[in-house]
């Protein structure tokens, strides 16, 4: 007799642990693969999972098996024109080879790489592992305006929307029991008396019985007059305000879109910011991003314009820095926000503007922000780099600059800027 079982509703995720073990074992290889891919992907294509390729020999599990030499015989089906004693040259790729070697390909074209897929989350996880926003601190404020509501038991007074029905009815029930004790006791007494009378054979108790029934009915009426629910019974959920330390962060992205920025440089800058954006989006729930693009004058824009719109013109970097500090003061007071600035440029600037930039950063911006990261996309250091060099020397905690030569440099530079610092 057979038993038939429907297993389809069982979870089909039996291999999850084994898959994780595999990913764990090849973590470094996968990371390398992910980093390679990030350079080759188009800007719009950061949001997908990916194929990971690992050389097959790295994942092989060895078993003892024979090499190719020695004498062997093999039987094959489908003879067409052979006769015993026929001889012919040994074919390339070895038809005579054993097929007893499991996964070894005997199709002639070997499979060299082990390919599998990871999903978007895993992809981003490998991408951004060990990265963090530097100097991110919880801004605990004496005059904090951030509160969260927390449950704190029950009260007898409150607004109707916080009414706790179960607690209220429970209280009402208790009150009714407490207040009706005397009557219910009396009713029980009377009922017992009545039953005794009813079972007695005498007929002359009729009147007494009737009297008892009236008494019971009266008491019941009295009981029914007890209110089912009273103001007195109402219970309300009590919520109290708890001050919240704020760890909100805002990232201000500043990009040069002037004429000197060639398409290629802009592309690199965009990739850098996109990486940054993905990183923030993934790691910090309450992170806001502000986009500022500038040529001779700076303008705040939305994400789409920042990445995709075109503009040309000369370059005045300080315009963007001033706008940034303006925005910080207006909207992101440092008492409540962790502020970060990332700037990308080809390093070109009006010579006379460099001094202004230096002052803007050291005086207006650095006091307000947690961290300022600058990437220069150029092969040779430009004048802005030298200006910033001084700042980096004096404010090494808060300011960092890196140079990107070409596309393959984006990710390493990104990592260097946001590497988790071991204390």
């Amino acid at each position, binding site marked *: 007799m057979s038993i038939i079982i429907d297993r389809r509703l069982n979870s089909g995720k039996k291999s999850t*642990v*084994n898959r994780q073990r*595999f990913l764990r074992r090849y973590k470094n290889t996968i990371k390398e693969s992910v980093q390679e891919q990030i350079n080759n992907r188009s800007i719009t294509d950061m949001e997908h999972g990916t194929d990971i390729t690992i050389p097959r020999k790295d994942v092989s599990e060895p078993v003892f098996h024979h090499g190719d030499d020695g004498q062997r015989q093999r039987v094959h089906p*489908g003879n067409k024109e052979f006769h015993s004693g026929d001889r012919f040259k040994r074919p390339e790729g070895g038809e005579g080879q054993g097929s007893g070697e499991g996964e070894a390909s005997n199709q002639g074209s070997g499979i060299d790489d082990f390919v599998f897929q990871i999903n978007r989350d895993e992809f981003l996880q490998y991408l951004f592992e060990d990265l963090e926003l530097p100097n991110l601190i919880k801004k605990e404020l004496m005059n904090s305006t951030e509160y969260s509501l927390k449950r704190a038991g029950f009260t007898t007074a409150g607004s109707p929307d916080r009414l706790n029905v179960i607690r209220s009815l429970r209280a009402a029930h208790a009150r009714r029991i407490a207040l009706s004790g005397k009557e219910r006791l009396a009713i029980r007494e009377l009922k017992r008396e009545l039953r005794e009378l009813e079972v007695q054979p005498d007929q002359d108790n009729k009147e007494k019985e009737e009297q008892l029934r009236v008494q019971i009915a009266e008491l019941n009426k009295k009981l029914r007059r007890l209110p089912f629910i009273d103001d007195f019974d109402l219970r309300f959920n009590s919520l109290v305000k708890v001050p919240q330390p704020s760890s909100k962060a805002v990232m201000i992205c500043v990009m040069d879109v002037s004429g000197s920025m060639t398409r290629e440089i802009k592309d690199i800058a965009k990739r850098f910011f996109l990486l940054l954006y993905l990183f923030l989006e993934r790691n910090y729930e309450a992170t806001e991003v502000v986009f500022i693009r500038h040529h001779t004058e700076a303008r705040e824009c939305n994400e789409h314009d920042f990445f995709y719109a075109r503009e040309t013109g000369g370059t005045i970097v300080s315009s963007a820095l001033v706008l940034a500090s303006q925005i910080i003061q207006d909207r992101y007071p440092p008492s409540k926000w962790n502020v970060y600035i990332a700037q990308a440029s080809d390093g070109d600037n009006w010579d006379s503007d460099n001094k202004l930039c230096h002052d803007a950063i050291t005086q207006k911006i650095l006091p307000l922000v947690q961290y300022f990261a600058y990437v220069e996309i150029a092969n040779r250091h430009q004048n802005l780099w030298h200006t910033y060099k001084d700042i980096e020397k004096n404010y090494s905690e808060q300011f960092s600059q890196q140079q990107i030569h070409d596309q393959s440099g984006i990710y390493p530079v990104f990592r260097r800027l946001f590497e988790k610092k071991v204390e």
Partner: protein
Amino acid sequence: MTRQYLSTGSEWTFELLDTYDRAIGQLAEKFELDTYPNQIEVINSEQMIDAYASVGMPLMYHHWSFGKKFLTNQQSYQRGRMGLAYEIVINSNPCIAYLMEENTMTMQALVIAHACYGHNSFFKGNYLFRQWTNADSIVDYLLFARNYIYQCEEKYGVDAVEELLDACHALMNQGVNRYMRPSAISAEMEKNQAREREEYIQRNINDLWRTVPTRKEDPAKVRKRFPAEPEENILYFVEKNAPLLKTWQRELIRIVRKIAQYFYPQRQTQVMNEGWASFWHFTLMHQLYREGLINEGYILEFLHSHSSVVFQPDFDDPRYSGINPYTLGFNIFRDIRRICEHPTQEDKVWFPDIAGSDWLKTLHHAMAQYKDESFILQFLSPKVMRDMRLFCIDDDDRQSFLEVSAIHDETGYRALRESLSNQYNLGNLEPNIQVYDVDVRGDRSLTLIHTMHKGQNLHSDTAMEILKHLHLLWGFDVKLNSVNSKGEIEHSYCTSETKSVA
């Protein structure tokens, strides 16, 4: 005959599965198929891929290599490069068979006949399975193994366990007893014994490695080898004798060894097992049709699936990847029936003892008493060789050419049959490697001997890899000598040197 069809549509339901199972079961009984009770489980494709990854077992310990298999299968399945099996069946009692939900009713019937009555009766009847595996306790044992390994991971860390399992897996094929029969014990006893073994083993090993000499040794005396006789089961030897292993490590080796042993009969009876199951799904489905239980549509769909299962591409076909065990086994079993029922003059010469005998009895005998190697040697008939147009190629690395040594003709039948039988002899396919000696009084190095078969060397890269794994288990240097037929050492591998010495 006015019997009703069991069903006519292609959709299956649980009631129909039950109906078909009963009908097929009744027929199977008529054919004297003795089976374990069946446990038919309907699963979806995702679960099927899971089952693939854990070698079909319902539960298995965790290891990255299963994850690798899972990823490979998932990838090829999603890319449409691989179809999934219609079923997986497990040698257990009750016999668990997985059916895919995508199958049509016809396919489900085929699969029930194939797995639940074909394979199932093979598991119960074949002598190798009866001797070597314990269908009653395998699921319990796997549960024990998984829990034990899980506990080890908690106690000693995932990495330590993984490293050890890697080493054991590399030696899995060398972890089976080929000739000595283990006694069957239950999972409960297994657990108790595991505890008892702890002390016992540790005590014994200390004894073996005692360094204080009890009496003056005569240096002239010929040193005795340890082990006295070469040991083919390397994992067993290591488990019992490695000096530095902890008890849990010994237990892990034992688990891998046990599982390898459980699968060993399956590797020795692939042709027979699949041939037997295919023969019975073919016979049972035809019987259903003959009795008017299924209609023409069903039998046509069945024949279509059946012929793709037993499809054998020719050697020059791009799809060719060796002989299809389903085809070979099916053809031989079918031919045995033919020889019994309608023997020709040739059959009477070749098979005097079975020509004209009762086919059912002969078939059951063939299933129960043979493994692939002996089965082919005994029952591969000239007709099957002719039908499959088999031919044998000699490949000798000392010659610059290949030679056709035998084809399907009068002079070639016996040679052909013998080489095909050899092709399924695991003893020839796998390198013969045995534990030869341990330098007990010296550096404790372990020496293995590879007895070369027909001048075939080991694949040297993997050999070195495995020696490293064995080194981890043994704790001291490991040597491996390949010895040719003249008794000379052709190759020597050693873990203490980086390169193998030619």
